[in-house]
């Protein structure tokens, strides 16, 4: 411990100094604090009023975002796993596409 803190009257002196620090002169708040606060509150209400109520709460917004990401992941995963990659895709012939009878066409 430092020598300056070992003198008999030191604790009381430090305590007095700390209390004087607590009562030191400090800058004051600027006037019209409440007016500025009101303007800030109105501004924040206006900036979020176009959002649906459930998106103004972070928990709901994060849940909605997570759900969206999960749905996208599910769609991508589903398209990868469920697609018949082992079967070659054959282009439908015009006859099948238009449901035409080839025999009838041959005699026309």
């Amino acid at each position, binding site marked *: 411990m430092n020598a300056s803190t070992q003198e008999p009257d030191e604790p009381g002196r430090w305590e007095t*100094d700390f209390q004087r620090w607590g009562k030191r002169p400090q800058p004051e*708040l600027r006037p019209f604090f409440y007016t500025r606060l009101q303007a800030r509150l109105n501004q924040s209400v206006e900036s979020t009023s176009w959002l649906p109520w459930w998106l103004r709460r972070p928990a709901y917004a994060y849940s909605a975002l997570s759900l969206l990401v999960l749905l996208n992941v599910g769609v991508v995963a589903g398209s990868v796993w469920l697609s018949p990659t082992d079967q070659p895709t054959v282009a439908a012939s015009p006859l099948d596409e238009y449901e035409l009878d080839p025999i009838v066409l041959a005699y026309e």
Partner: protein
Amino acid sequence: MGPNTQKTRDVVNEPTDELSRLDRLQQGDEATFRWLVETYQTRVFRTALAIVQLPEEAEDVAQEVFEEVYRTVGAFRGEASLATWLYRITTSRALKKERDRKRKKRFAFLTSLFSDDEPERYDPPDFQTPETILETDERIHHISRAIQSLAESQKVAFTLHYQEELSYQEIAAVMQTSVSAVESLLFRARQTVRKKLTSYVTP
């Protein structure tokens, strides 16, 4: 006990009609919200200023505090007094602001290494005016400097005890910790300030 101490006691120890005020606040009564702001604005500002040092930032913290109160008072169940709740929001917001300032300062230093431009300043200027310098002696100024070097929780406990004159129990309620933990924080804070101050005074 001085008049200032008595005033703080009256506020922290729940006035008789605190519950009805809380009820009116939760119903969105503007007059009660205005009463709350005007009653606590100086204490909130001063507490924030002890942590962030810059009056503009302290006022910004004060505005954030009352904005949070306005938004979340509906969910406040009254398990603590309004004053305790306000001090809790204030200290947590002020500490966050101070962390952001330090992070910006570090980032500014890093970017200044790769740029020729003058780095942006993030150190709070000394807000002492000629009047306050006349009124405040050098020792108090050194204590202020030493307090800035304290750990966050010690700084909060020291400020609430010596500046806001809260009791150990009240500080424990604000910091959501035990009375013995507050005693320990204050003991270590005093020790650190003494050591720092000794090094300032006797280089």
